């Protein structure tokens, strides 16, 4: 047999009274909560681009590593032309040292003269 404590009834009634309390949030409370939400809301992430270094910017400007290899080849070729100029180029260099030589850029002799390139 379970003895019921009369005070249990009182407590149950108190619980029921409390459960009945369901106040609607006031406009003021709602406004406070929304203001809080706005105040601490994370801002959309802004991505700050990292400034690339001088070297990598120069590299990009000329077209990356493939362009660098091309530049290296051209540099080597330029040195070679300077050290051992082909005869057609010798004509051109003569203009810089005083000889008056006229060279046609469109001369087939200049462009297709095998000997000019193969003589080294």
């Amino acid at each position, binding site marked *: 047999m379970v003895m019921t404590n009369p005070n249990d009834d*009182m407590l149950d009634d*108190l619980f029921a009274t409390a459960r009945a309390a*369901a106040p609607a949030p006031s406009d003021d409370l709602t406004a406070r*909560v929304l203001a809080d*939400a706005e105040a601490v809301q994370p801002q959309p992430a802004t991505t700050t681009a990292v400034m690339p270094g001088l070297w990598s910017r120069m590299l990009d400007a000329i077209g990356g590593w493939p362009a660098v290899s091309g530049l290296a080849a051209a540099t080597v070729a330029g040195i070679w032309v300077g050290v051992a100029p082909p005869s057609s180029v010798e004509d051109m260099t003569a203009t810089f040292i005083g000889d008056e030589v006229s060279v046609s850029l469109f001369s087939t002799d200049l462009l297709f003269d095998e000997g000019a390139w193969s003589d080294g």
Partner: protein
Amino acid sequence: MNASPDPFAGAPDEALLVAYANGDGQAAAVLTARLLPRALAQATRMLGNQTEAEDAAQDAMMRLWKIAPDWRQGEAQVSTWLYRVVANICTDQLRKRRGVSLDQVAEPLDATPSVAAQMQTQARMTALSEALAQLPERQAQAVSLRHLEGLANPEIAQIMDISVRSVESLTARGKRALVDIMAGRKAELGYGDDEPE
């Protein structure tokens, strides 16, 4: 019922929280409309005081906003988390009250049919809150979730992160202690010869 169209209708609270954390302006309003009434009701039932309950509900919602960016999806439901946070805030508040008469800060709750009835309801809620304040915190939380929020023991176990058996033990001991505490105030609260309202 759809006076104002809800662009997040049907979206789970968790999705709204993620939207809020990603800067969505409307998500906070929808979450507030969904969660604030329940948080306020829970706080009101535990604290029996409107001002304190409003502050507790606001505090709980603030903690929600702050945790939003770090919310671990799929781990807990937002509603479960909020029950726990409100319960913790309220037991903290109850602890601060110990030894302080709530009469000094009690305010009438919302209007009831008559002033006398309103005063008695307020007195009873204040008394219940004062009694809860005398319980160990875990007992107070378990009792309030079980008997004031009407939650099932497995749900309370999840909220409090304890076993169902522990919930049963805490609520049983808590309720017994409350009966003892309230026994001396029976007449004062209108439970003497009168029928309980």
